[in-house]
């Protein structure tokens, strides 16, 4: 149908609008709130063809019908759109649905992110069963009506018994067609993202919001590359524990910070569940860069050098600027590892920097 052509043209215009304005959506948390399974709803200004038309006052007056005296309210509210004084009127918003996949694509295009090369595991294949084959025998539950009908019809026509006046088709045993299993080889990639976050007193709400936004976009991108991506969440102050996503973003503890506690827990997690020969592992750690002691920092560095860097795809550390943090940890890491490819460091000064930080993390294509 020709309308499909127009529709896809319209959709690509919309996507172009989203792309143009992408930064605003990235730094705006409400988008994540609108997530519905595989889709996000994005409000964009209605694209409109301008014409000479009357201003907003046109809709403020009209003819109605019914009871009531002068001054009686009619209950009806004017259309959507906030009527704040002095605001530009007539800006209608429409919501467009965009799949996470498309969103990831836009993110990728915008930041010019390279495709991720899953490490190792290239030669591991799994056999998967797909019901795409057709066979003349099978359980009744898998009978394909359409194919059976076609077969029967063909038999009728070829034998000359088809009567258009009485087009009843009665299939016989050998007309029946069934779905059947076909084995397909699937390349086998598994990936896990482990988010660690410092929730000590010095991490404020704004810092956590930044982490939340950033991890949402990182997830979106990684999900595009790994079907069935697993995510794990660890929070820590002086001690670390595993939590669910919701708690991860909401918890605020007070007290000291021992980064090594989180790294140790993460290490256990990887050792027990995610063998590095099978899994693509992405640990992300966000903190404000404050650690309790130099000794603990040294412990972290050892863990990184000896365990994490050899085993994971890339270890990412994001330092969120906060009033209280000293930001020392980032400097320590830089000093220790310099330009080691397996470690990415990023400093996030504020919301505006989220995009460039994502680029830091994912720009290596690992």
């Amino acid at each position, binding site marked *: 149908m020709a309308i499909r*052509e127009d529709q896809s043209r319209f959709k690509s215009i919309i996507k172009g609008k989203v792309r143009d304005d992408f930064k605003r959506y990235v730094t705006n948390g409400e988008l994540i709130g609108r997530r519905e399974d595989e889709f996000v709803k994005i409000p964009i200004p209605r694209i409109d063809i301008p014409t000479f038309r009357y201003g907003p006052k046109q809709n*403020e007056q*009209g*003819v*109605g019908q019914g009871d009531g005296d002068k001054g009686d309210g009619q*209950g*009806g*509210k004017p259309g959507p759109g906030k009527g704040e004084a002095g605001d530009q009127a007539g800006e209608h918003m429409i919501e467009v649905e965009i799949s996470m996949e498309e969103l990831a694509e836009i993110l990728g295009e915008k930041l010019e992110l390279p495709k991720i090369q899953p490490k190792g595991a290239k030669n591991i294949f799994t056999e998967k069963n797909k019901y795409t084959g057709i066979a003349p025998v099978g359980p009744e539950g898998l009978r394909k009506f359409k194919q059976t009908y076609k077969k029967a019809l063909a038999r009728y026509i070829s034998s000359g018994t088809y009567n258009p006046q009485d087009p009843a088709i009665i299939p016989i045993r050998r007309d029946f067609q069934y779905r059947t299993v076909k084995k397909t080889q699937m390349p086998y990639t598994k990936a896990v993202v482990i988010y660690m976050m410092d929730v000590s007193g010095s991490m404020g709400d704004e810092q956590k919001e930044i982490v939340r936004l950033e991890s949402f976009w990182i997830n979106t991108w990684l999900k595009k590359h790994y079907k069935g991506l697993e995510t794990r969440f660890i929070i820590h102050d002086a001690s670390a524990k595993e939590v669910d996503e919701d708690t991860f973003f909401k918890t605020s503890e007070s007290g000291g910070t021992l980064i090594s506690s989180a790294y140790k827990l993460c290490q256990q997690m990887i050792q027990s569940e995610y063998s590095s020969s099978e899994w693509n592992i992405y640990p992300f750690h966000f903190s404000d860069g404050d650690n309790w002691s130099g000794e603990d920092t040294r412990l972290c560095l050892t863990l990184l050098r000896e365990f994490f860097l050899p085993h994971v795809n890339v270890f990412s550390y994001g330092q969120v600027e906060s009033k209280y943090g000293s930001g020392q940890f980032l400097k320590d890491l830089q000093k220790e590892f310099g330009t080691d490819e397996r470690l990415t460091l990023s400093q996030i000064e504020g919301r505006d920097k989220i995009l460039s930080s994502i680029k830091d993390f994912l720009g290596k294509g690992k």
Partner: protein
Amino acid sequence: MANLTPELEAERKRICKIAKDCGLDCFETIFELISYDQISQFASYGGFPVRYPHWKFGMEYEQLSKSYEYGLSKIYEMVINTDPCYAYLMEGNSMMDQKLVMAHVYGHCDFFKNNIWFSKTNRKMIDQMANHATRVRRYIDRYGYDEVERFIDTCLSLENLIDRHSILNGPPKMTEPKPAINKSEQFMFKVEKSYMKNYINPPDKVADQKAKQFEIDSQKPEFPAEPVRDILSFLIHYAPLEDWQQDILTIIRDESYYFAPQGMTKTLNEGWASYWHSYMMTRHILNDSEIIDFADHHSGTMFMQMGGYNPYKVGIELFRDIEERWNKGQFGREWEQCDDVRERKNWDKKTGLGREKIFEVRKLYNDVNFIDEYLTEDFCVRNRMFVYKLNKETNQFEVDTRDFKAIKAQLLFQMTNFGQPIIKIENANFENRGELLLHHVHEGLDLQPNYMDATMQNMYKIWKRPLNLVTLMDNEPQLFRYDGTEYTRHSLGDEKKSEPEQREFPKS
């Protein structure tokens, strides 16, 4: 073509016969049974199976199909004004709905065939639209999708700038030659050596020539001689366009003119069709089991929402009122002059002219003169009509007045020029510089500034010379100017009249 089920076909024949017996005079009407997806497609194409490719149809489709899927709206009926008439029924509607739609469609059909405003429309518009599509596709092949799409966007921005009054006369003939733009000081000779300047172009001679030139300029006839409402046709004739662009602009204008009468007769047309579906359904078509469903559906259609005007409701009530008045002889001088309430109430001269009268109305009127002539004070009181206004403090609509004159004025305003601003070309050689001077006939409402700005920029793309628009904004006459790079506004207040920019204003 028609693919109705035998049951529907039988009903169609029956309803067609009933319509004929009622005196409706239709083109042959072909009903097609289609799925909701197809109906959304046709609806986004304005009822037609094929249109030129453009994203606005895609947007329309997206909205229609979504709102159907979410159960927010449903299109019941669609009919195209062609000969034969095509109408669509949706698969899966109940039998009662289908019958209702058919009865309604025959009403529309009769209206299309007989109303005078449709007498000039192209009844082969389906073919015409398909031709337009082919032409546009050919241009796309030659000049590229983006280029053509951009130009169509520009044209659509000016789509509503046609002259409704020329619907009956056909497109205006524009034969005046476009005046050449005067290059300043054409009479000067070229000077190669600067010391020769005063010998080749003696200053007193130049001054003389200038004065002469000014005289000639001031005697030049205005162009165009009369203000032009049909701006699209004007641009087609006089704007510096390439052939394909001219053709696309012509396509947009022709389609705009095709749809114009439907916009001009919305209330009348829907009122007429509703009157007849109600008449035929309740008297001849419905069976006992369907009457409740019908009443439910009918009243849903007629419901007049707060803050919204329902052409079905106002139309049907007016037709019924006219029929009753002419049946009882409640018209003419005697009736108008009678002040006695009781006498008026019991007025019945048994003239029985009602049916004849409404057929006459459906033939000769459009929405504006229909409301102007037949909306009476009695009618407004009986139907409890009022004017509402938005109360800015509570952000709610409130009853403003029940004054008959105010109601009528409001309705007429809404309908004049489809509730769109009237814009004219006053001068196409403004300031003798080939600029366009537009005039917005202000009728109480200001133009939407940001849209005006964008539309002028689009018009500039076609006219390729600066544009000026005179309008009243915030109770102050103003001139808006777009010269291709900059958008400026100039007050036309009295104290500034002396400025050369504004010396021709305001004009009547």
